[in-house]
């Protein structure tokens, strides 16, 4: 085990540098990533053995869930309540809300089911902001180029081009729903939006509302969904399995109603998965910034039904998670802090990386400092300093008005940011890969669309700050529009309610598990993290 420098010593070292020097680097970025990024660790990847992405690399923990058995069997469906709808949206974050609103506006009957309450998601937690190339000196092309480079040239060019082109329309849509954005110079010419710099970008392009953009966005989206008569909302009804027709297409989903402890079978003409990412799996033992429900549920279900996945071995570890106090470990300190001038210092008081390099590079650099014994330890927690000195001068606006969420966090840590630095350590933040989709959000399974963090391809192998909030709205709206169109086409063919499906695909999957010699006793999706497991089945004697 490596050693680390004590907190007291590190504070002294910091104080001895009025202007901390930036240490020259002896490793190329590629070498730094190869040696220190968690994705490159020897135990961070395995090959999928069954399913439509067989042979592709995947994180072992996730592979275990992807190649596991269903939570339900045919018996569970027998007595379950039946419902039907045109479009079933699964997941109540930004992607789900945008898809549901657009589908309803497109004339479809919509049902939105969410595991937690609508809005309790990663979206509400986003602080930094959303990218949109609006400056006269900027263009969608430059947005595209930055994201392509940031994602190591692995993004799907078509999807990425749509992302960059959709941005202005998305911002307009948000304003039309009542979302606020920060302005500079509000007095002239209708005002100009404030742009912040993101790591890895050729120019400032992040739009935000203070440092709680996601909260502002989700409050508006949630209220709009709740007040929309065309959307039926089911809170606390996680999806536990998808339904299939004989031809392999998606027929809807099985929900578990937590309040009444029973299954609901929803037949749908089109199903949109928007269940987000997998941060709560704590890959590679890292803490996470993600909300409680981020357990890869949708990914597991889509794969079992036959959807293709990509880049399931590429994750984003955000450089600045809280490392101390323990109670707040993994919580995010937004990149907005570094964008505004916060510095990263090791235990010797040196800067060791350009703070605005791409996130994977900064993360690898922090892990290197810790591995080399230049990390800092406080009450058993290791990390490096995030020094806010440059944000807290006498002639600067108070931190509380610049970055209120950061001030709130510093208060919770019991830290006075004008004097004391915060201890930070990388935190598992984002799932770069996911379900393969086309330009309208359709997966390789007919009738199944996906939007948001559950999808792969838009960001390649590393996402830039602000492109996830854009992605969930751009593609959430595309998926909603497409689902409404398809549902309408199906209704034109037959006015009968959608056909009820079954779980034939689960039986096929079980045969594959057996053939590959995989353990069929492991069940997924997980639904809830932590040691206490939810039991979906009452004892047989109690079943009606």
């Amino acid at each position, binding site marked *: 085990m490596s050693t680390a420098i004590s907190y007291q010593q590190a504070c002294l070292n910091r104080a001895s540098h009025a202007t901390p020097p930036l240490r020259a680097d002896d490793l190329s970025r590629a070498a730094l990533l190869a040696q220190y990024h968690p994705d490159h660790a020897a135990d961070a990847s395995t090959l999928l053995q069954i399913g439509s992405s067989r042979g592709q690399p995947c994180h072992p923990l996730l592979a275990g869930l992807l190649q596991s058995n269903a939570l339900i069997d045919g018996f569970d469906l027998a007595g379950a309540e039946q419902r039907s709808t045109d479009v079933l949206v699964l997941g109540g974050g930004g992607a789900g809300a945008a898809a549901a609103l657009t589908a309803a506006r497109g004339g479809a009957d919509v049902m939105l089911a969410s595991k937690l309450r609508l809005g309790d998601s990663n979206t509400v*937690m986003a602080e930094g902001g959303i990218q949109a190339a609006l400056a006269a000196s900027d263009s969608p*092309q430059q947005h595209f180029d930055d994201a392509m480079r940031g994602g190591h040239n692995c993004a799907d060019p078509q999807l990425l081009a749509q992302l960059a082109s959709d941005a202005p329309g998305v911002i307009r849509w948000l304003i039309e*729903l009542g979302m606020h954005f920060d302005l500079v110079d509000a007095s002239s010419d209708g005002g100009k939006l404030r742009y912040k710099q993101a790591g890895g970008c050729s120019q400032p392009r992040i739009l935000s509302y203070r440092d709680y953009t996601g909260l502002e966005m989700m409050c508006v989206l949630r209220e709009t969904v709740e007040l929309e008569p065309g959307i039926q909302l089911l809170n606390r009804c996680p999806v536990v399995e998808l339904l299939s027709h004989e031809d392999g297409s998606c027929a809807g989903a099985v929900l578990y109603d937590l309040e009444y402890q029973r299954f609901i079978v929803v037949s749908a003409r089109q199903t949109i998965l928007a269940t987000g990412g997998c941060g709560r799996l704590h890959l590679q033992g890292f803490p996470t910034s993600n909300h409680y429900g981020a357990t890869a549920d949708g990914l597991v279900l889509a794969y079992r039904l036959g959807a293709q996945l990509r880049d399931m071995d590429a994750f984003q570890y955000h450089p600045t998670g809280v490392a101390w106090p323990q109670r707040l470990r993994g919580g995010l300190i937004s990149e907005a802090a570094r964008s505004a001038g916060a510095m990263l210092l090791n235990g010797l008081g040196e800067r060791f990386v350009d703070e605005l390099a791409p996130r994977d590079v900064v993360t690898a650099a922090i892990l290197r400092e810790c591995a080399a014994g230049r990390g800092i330890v406080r009450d058993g927690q290791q990390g490096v300093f995030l020094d806010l000195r440059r944000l807290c001068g006498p002639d600067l606006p108070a931190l509380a008005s610049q970055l209120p969420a950061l001030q709130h966090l510093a208060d919770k840590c019991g830290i006075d940011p004008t004097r004391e630095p915060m201890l930070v350590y990388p935190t598992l933040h984002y799932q770069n890969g996911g379900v393969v989709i086309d330009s309208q959000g359709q997966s390789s399974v007919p009738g199944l669309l996906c939007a948001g963090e559950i999808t792969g391809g838009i960001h390649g192998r590393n996402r830039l700050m602000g492109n996830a909030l854009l992605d969930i709205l751009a593609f959430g709206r595309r998926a909603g529009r497409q689902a409404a169109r398809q549902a309408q086409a199906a209704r034109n063919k037959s006015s009968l309610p959608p056909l009820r499906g079954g779980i034939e695909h689960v039986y096929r999957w079980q045969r594959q598990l057996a053939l590959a010699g995989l353990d069929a006793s492991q069940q997924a999706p997980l639904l809830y993290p932590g040691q206490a497991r939810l039991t979906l089945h009452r004892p047989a004697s109690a079943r009606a």
Partner: protein
Amino acid sequence: MSETICISIDGKVMAAQPGDSILQTRLHGPDAVTANIGCMGQGVCGSCRCLVRKAGERETVSRLACETVVEDGMQVSFIDYYLPDHVHRYRPHDLRDGWQALPQLQQTFPETAHCRHCGGCDRACPRGIPVQQGIALASRGELQAAAALFDPCIMCNLCTLACPENIRPNHVGLYLRRAQAIQNLRPGDLLRRLEQQARGQLAIDTTAHLARSES
């Protein structure tokens, strides 16, 4: 840390680690946690609402469980989220005409005028928002000022629960904030970009990066 303390959550006594939050303590308990949880410490989702009474105190206060550190002898009960029946529906589209702002507010939230100034909402708010003052400003027609007060609201609905007149103060606040953006926010740079796109300019060349990475 060796010392452990005891708190009671929804009537069950549990051992807790000093320094942990109420929410963390509940997660270490024997039951699967499926509600009243979301962001787990960021304090933005508003789902972990609870009532807290400290040992030896009479007063019960509303708190966010993920932001509240446990103390020995604390009693906690979580509050379920519900949607009341008397929700007043409106659509963003309805808010476009600023000239109708006052009559529309009165129509959509008629209870606003009935505020008793009991201060229940102020006491409930974990964010320290002067909710009652916001409602007073709104009913006086000072809509911008009222909206501004609700800026840091996380929509935890505790003020709505506390209000004896069914005013739903946070929803009034959000309504006013939305109206403000819908009516006033017309950034020049966004208008220009939308217009350029409408004229078919600014298409993206998806192959440009290939040439660059080869060179």
